[in-house]
């Protein structure tokens, strides 16, 4: 074509925060997944592994040795051949830097290059390494040429990945522009997109206007009120997809007054689940069954749910012997409208029970600092979104509710050895007997619900809006908000 085709992806915050694919553990997921590739990819809707740089893999009987057979004929964007050495180099370096999401590799003991197209991982303990190798962060394979002597990443170096797009230009904190890598092993379809622009557009209204005028090809995180309007707009296509994100309100189970399970249960009954889903996310989601979100294995509609029931809540409150002057602090992440509205709705329900909810919007880090700081100063309820590092229930249950001496993300400060045992066991079983593992995770969640460790508010759906000319868009919840531009075409 004479003029290249291009597509703008309007993001709600900066496109990336670090060029180094070993370190980036934030918005860069959008950009990096188009520039770099993992050994495998996981399709969480179909629940199956897709071969990428590895065409196939085998696991030893004891589950401790994983062998990957690499794809032949893959070239880095800089022209170098892709070999097993690169895999060893990338994973070892990522582990060594110990930054970002590198902990996903923590089971790995050693990496051996068997031949240029075969690489073998030895594990210290049983771990689903296929899922690890398919993670959206820190599992990228990159060229050693992009690292300088002191092992730091050479910023904005083009050609370090094997992915379909390579860097064209970037403006920090604002936009990243990628262009098509002609020598991509996966080849190119007709009308594919030549240039991709990742652009930060923090105002939702601006994003909506961009997509309406076709200035943006694709965007996410629009308020549902806009979605309703856009659904009737022939210029755009709205697609609603399951996401693996859920909103939870963690109770401080260690501090009075919420160390009382009855009180926690009362509060869980007082949460207006349906009103929140209807009002805050416009019905694009559903009340959670436990911690594992719909769309991920380990989810079960057989789990009990707390339903909104003020009478029950009142009774439980009385049972718990809570005074009339009960006042609780809830923190949420400032700037997130959905969390804010949810908190406000909750506050008005609790007010009906005579409970004062003091809601504070804080930047995530301040909120987190408060949760990790002086125990007497911690919030009573901490509201947050959770999403998977690995597409496994373990990722949802381990970080958030596994006993910790020094809390990190177990911000309910939940301590239950039985629970720990169950989920650790489930994780070990994952690669051998997934059904058994599933059951163990479900049982574990039952414990959380009985203990009312948290309010499981809703599992959210993701709403994507694409401009009408964009075809082939497919969403994979294991890679939240990632658009694989290689799959897209432009039709006029």
């Amino acid at each position, binding site marked *: 074509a004479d*003029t*290249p085709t*291009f597509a*703008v992806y309007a993001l709600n*915050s*900066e496109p990336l*925060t*670090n060029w180094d694919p070993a*370190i980036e*553990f*934030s918005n860069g997921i959008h950009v990096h997944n188009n520039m770099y590739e993992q050994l495998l990819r996981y399709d969480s809707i179909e629940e199956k592994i897709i071969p990428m740089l590895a065409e196939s893999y085998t696991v030893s009987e004891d589950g401790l040795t994983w062998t990957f057979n690499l794809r032949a004929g893959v070239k880095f964007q800089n022209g170098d051949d892709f070999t097993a050495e690169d895999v060893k180099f990338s994973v070892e370096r990522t582990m060594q830097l*110990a*930054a*970002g*999401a590198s*902990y996903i590799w923590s089971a790995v003991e050693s990496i051996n290059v068997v031949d240029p197209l075969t690489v073998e991982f030895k594990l210290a303990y049983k771990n689903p390494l296929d899922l690890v190798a398919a993670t959206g962060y820190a599992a990228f394979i990159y060229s050693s040429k992009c690292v300088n002597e002191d092992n730091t990443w050479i*910023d904005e170096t083009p050609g370090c990945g094997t992915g379909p797009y390579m860097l064209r230009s970037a*403006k*920090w*904190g*604002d*936009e990243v*522009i990628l262009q098509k890598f002609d020598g991509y092993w996966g080849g190119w379809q007709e009308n594919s997109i030549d*240039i991709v*622009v990742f*652009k*930060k*557009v*923090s*105002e939702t*209204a*601006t994003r909506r*206007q*961009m997509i309406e005028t076709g*200035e943006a090809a694709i965007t996410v995180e629009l308020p549902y009120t806009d979605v309703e309007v856009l659904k009737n707009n022939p210029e755009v296509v709205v697609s609603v997809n399951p996401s693996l994100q859920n909103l939870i309100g963690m109770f401080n189970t260690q501090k009075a007054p919420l160390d009382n399970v009855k009180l926690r249960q009362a509060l869980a009954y007082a949460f207006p689940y349906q009103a929140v889903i209807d009002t805050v996310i416009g019905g694009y989601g559903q009340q959670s069954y436990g911690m594992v979100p719909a769309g991920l294995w380990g989810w079960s509609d057989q789990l009990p749910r707390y339903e909104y029931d003020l009478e029950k809540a009142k009774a439980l409150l009385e049972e718990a012997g809570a005074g009339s002057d009960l006042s609780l602090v809830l923190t949420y992440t*400032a*700037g997130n409208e959905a969390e804010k509205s949810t908190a406000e709705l909750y506050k008005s329900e609790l007010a009906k029970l005579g409970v004062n909810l003091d809601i504070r919007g804080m*930047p*995530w*880090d*301040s909120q*987190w*600092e408060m949760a*990790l*700081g002086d125990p007497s100063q911690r919030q009573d309820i901490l509201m947050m979104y959770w999403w998977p*590092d690995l597409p496994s229930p373990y990722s949802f249950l381990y*970080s958030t509710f596994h006993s910790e001496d*020094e809390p*990190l*993300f177990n911000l309910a400060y939940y301590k239950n050895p039985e629970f720990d045992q169950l989920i650790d066991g489930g994780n070990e079983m994952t690669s051998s007997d997934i059904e058994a593992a599933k059951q163990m995770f479900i049982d574990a969640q039952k414990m959380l619900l009985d203990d009312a460790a948290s309010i499981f508010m809703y599992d959210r759906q993701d709403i994507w809006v694409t401009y009408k000319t964009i075809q082939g868009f497919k969403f994979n919840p294991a890679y939240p908000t990632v658009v694989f531009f290689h799959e897209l075409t432009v039709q006029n």
Partner: protein
Amino acid sequence: MTKFILRRVLLGIIVLLGVAFITFFVARVVPSNPAAKWAGPRANPEQIAKATIELGLDKPLVVQFGKYLMDLFRGNLGNSLRTRRPITQELLESLPATVELVLLSTIAAVFIGIPLGVISAKRKDKLIDHLSRLFSIGAVSLPTFWIGLILQLVFFRILDIFPMGGQLSTEIKILMDIPKVTGFLIFDCLITGNFTILWDALWHIVLPGITIALYPIGLVARMTRSAMLEILNEDYITAARSYGLKERTVLWSYALKNSIGPTSTVVALSIGYTLVNTFLTESIFTWPGIGSYISSAVIGNDYPAIMGVTIFSAFSYVLLNLAADIIIALDPRVRT
């Protein structure tokens, strides 16, 4: 005169030291755990311990402050906690876009605000004075963040005259070679004679420009008016009239020169305000400047970045005030 300037510069340095101390305090001492932030989200204790050493947070505060000062002296504002990149570099990248906006609004403030103030003072309590007062006070009373939204709604969505945001149209940005000489887009287009891009850039700067410029225009007009009102009552103005000088001369040369002192102070002041107002508007107009930068920093609790911007603004502010003081010092009355 030179001594006066020297003294002012010295005071400026003292002030900057104080500024540095405050920013250091805010950035290093107050947040409970910068290391955790540095180590990244979901980091484990070992990673955090490593970060503590990397950041030198294990050293005594005095040593940290000393190092901070040395770094400042070298123009090193530290690294962003989010991106781990040098803040100085990030600032320099987003600076030109903001400077363009601020400069434009300052020019507007001088060339619209001052004449407005002078006319208003001359025609005190006449209709034109009421209108101009209403305008200038209105301009300083508008919440910048709000008027940005409204302008966008009216001029883009309803009337579709001006683009919604950004510095350039995406097509132009991707398909054309953007001149990069000084980093200031409009200026670069001018010197390379690239008029297609220039036109596009000018078209894009109108709405954010108006949003940002309203405040300084109003401020300068208001200040000029009141300075002029006082000066027009001075004996030497009456005397100048008694010599039969033209009213035009009396107003625009005699009186105006006397009001340069307060006016230049207020212009310097308004540049500071404008800079901060960009924080509130740039995100609305997806303007890739410091404002966008600091709003990401505030959302991300990136203390070093916030403090970097703060110290940078304070530095420019001190310099601007110095410039204003020197202009005032040209007034022979304060020469000592």
